[in-house]
């Protein structure tokens, strides 16, 4: 029997789901005492809209041939992906707190052979967009109508391979490919602007021939609208450049570079959950 897939269309319901996903992120990274909360929290709204509104998926049949594919190119944000997959029903939410443990299927970075719903093994930055292009080329070859999404970090796009793949996507007119750049402005060694001046991200992709949409990456209706615009864009891929806040939803983590790869301590987990609980009730994260 096929389980009913949860599809949410009300932005407030999606915001509440994103809030649940943020709580999972805090709990699982806290339980693991290691992991990357900042860039997981910044991407929570985007990933929520994909898994609970826009993507064509069957969580009880993860290998369904006609499913949409999502590639988490910034693989260190695995907690946001795992939380969304568990909430969507790919595996029990109880598994989430096993993150990074020796006996867990939830590896520190996504592993397509261990976790149901993970489409590509990632972790070494800059590689996911190439894989997403390969998937989108396969769909075109087969005349299939499933779509491919990928999420990249703003620091990640310092990797040259991203721009090789950006050329491939345009050359092959991959209009079935939509990427998000999670532009949270921070990377491990500091602000992206100081590390490698990766400003004007939208203009860069536009110069490569992409259709570019710039949005607030925490504005759920804007995320929904951008994906719809991507679906109606033909002949070229779409890059949704999303301005986000690293650590979004947990005030002491917001815009603090130290929370890129640091786990909260138990009292910090408590404080973060309390704050998120309040904002969940408020309806919008």
């Amino acid at each position: 029997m096929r389980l009913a897939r949860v599809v949410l269309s009300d932005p407030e319901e999606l915001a509440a789901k994103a809030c649940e996903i943020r709580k999972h992120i805090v709990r699982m990274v806290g339980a693991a005492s290691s992991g990357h909360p900042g860039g997981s929290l910044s991407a929570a709204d985007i990933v929520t809209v994909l898994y609970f509104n826009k993507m064509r998926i069957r969580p009880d049949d993860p290998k369904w041939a006609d499913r949409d594919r999502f590639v988490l190119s910034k693989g260190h944000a695995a907690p946001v992906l795992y939380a969304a997959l568990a909430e969507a029903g790919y595996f029990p939410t109880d598994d989430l707190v096993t993150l990074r443990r020796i006996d867990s299927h939830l590896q520190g970075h996504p592993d397509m052979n261990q976790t149901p719903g993970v489409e590509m093994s990632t972790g070494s930055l800059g590689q996911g967009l190439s894989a997403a292009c390969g998937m989108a080329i396969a769909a075109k070859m087969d005349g299939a109508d499933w779509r491919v999404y990928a999420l990249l970090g703003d620091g990640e796009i310092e990797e040259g391979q991203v721009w090789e793949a950006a050329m491939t996507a345009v050359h092959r007119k991959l209009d079935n490919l939509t990427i998000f750049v999670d532009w949270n402005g921070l990377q491990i060694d500091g602000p992206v602007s100081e590390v490698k001046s990766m400003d004007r991200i939208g203009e860069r992709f536009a110069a490569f021939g992409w259709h570019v949409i710039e949005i607030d990456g925490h504005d759920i209706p804007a995320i929904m609208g951008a994906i719809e615009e991507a679906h109606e864009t033909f002949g070229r891929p779409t890059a949704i450049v999303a301005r986000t806040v690293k650590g979004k939803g947990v005030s002491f983590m917001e815009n603090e570079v130290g929370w890129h790869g640091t786990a909260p301590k138990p009292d910090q987990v408590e404080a973060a959950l309390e704050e998120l609980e309040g904002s969940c009730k408020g309806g919008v994260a």
Partner: protein
Amino acid sequence: MSKMIATRAAYGETLAELGAHDAKIVVLDADLSGSTRTGWFAAKYPERFIQMGIAEADMMGTAAGLAATGKTAFASTFAVFATGRAFDQVRQSIAVPGLNVKICATHAGLTVGEDGGSHQSVEDIALMRVLPNMTVIVPSDAAQTRWAVRVAAEKNGPFYVRLGRAAVPEIYDEEAEFELGKAKTLREGQDVTIIACGVMVSRALEAADALGAKGIHARVLDMHTIKPLDDEAVRRAAEETGGIVTVEEHSIIGGLGGAVCESVCSSAPVPVIRVGVADVFGRSGKPDELLEAYGLTAENIACAAERIINMKKTH
């Protein structure tokens, strides 16, 4: 042994043939399809050929994405770029997830020739062999290449097939049979074993003939599969002949010689002399001149075999 054909040509022909039978096969190349001979597939099946431009890293990742959807992805460029330039992509996007990508790299080793050291991979076998999940085949002639390409297409998982630019003698007829992970015994012998791969197999046979004229009976193994290595054949060679010479168009570090030493150390330790490129990069020259200059000759192999026999006597 009269006809000469490059293994890259046998690859191109076989790939174009396989395309007719297996619609899942897709081929990627990084602006070298004329040289790697994937262009022959492209001419027949343009809809399944993906020109990636000069972007080897992107090619490996794209091949991985295609494989993740169920395609059998053949990715070709020169060996030096496939394994060195794109090493991390081969590792993270192909080997770690064990995806069905066949890296068929041409222009391996010194016999690239005039292009020189920048283009001559002397380290590719080592780089690919060290990766978990990777199968490594180094065909010695056209017939064996045809088998290698077919077996790579049939079996699931990552493969590295090392091919050459220069024409090499045919060693096998079309009926010859090969088995993945099983050395092919070309000469029986009890005095010493020569284990060779790739273009050096024909020279190993010349060396064995020269040794035979002196009354030395050398066993010759064509170790076409470097990984998984035929440990049983290595152990038998050690126990039955008491010493081994390895021969490869690759660094003496980390390739066939390294693999045989690792194997023999844990089964039946005997003297091993590794004939190969002595931890240096190549240079420009004609293929035969280069093999001569770097000591990859039948004379050197025979000399190494006689040294092994002397070492056996003094032990």
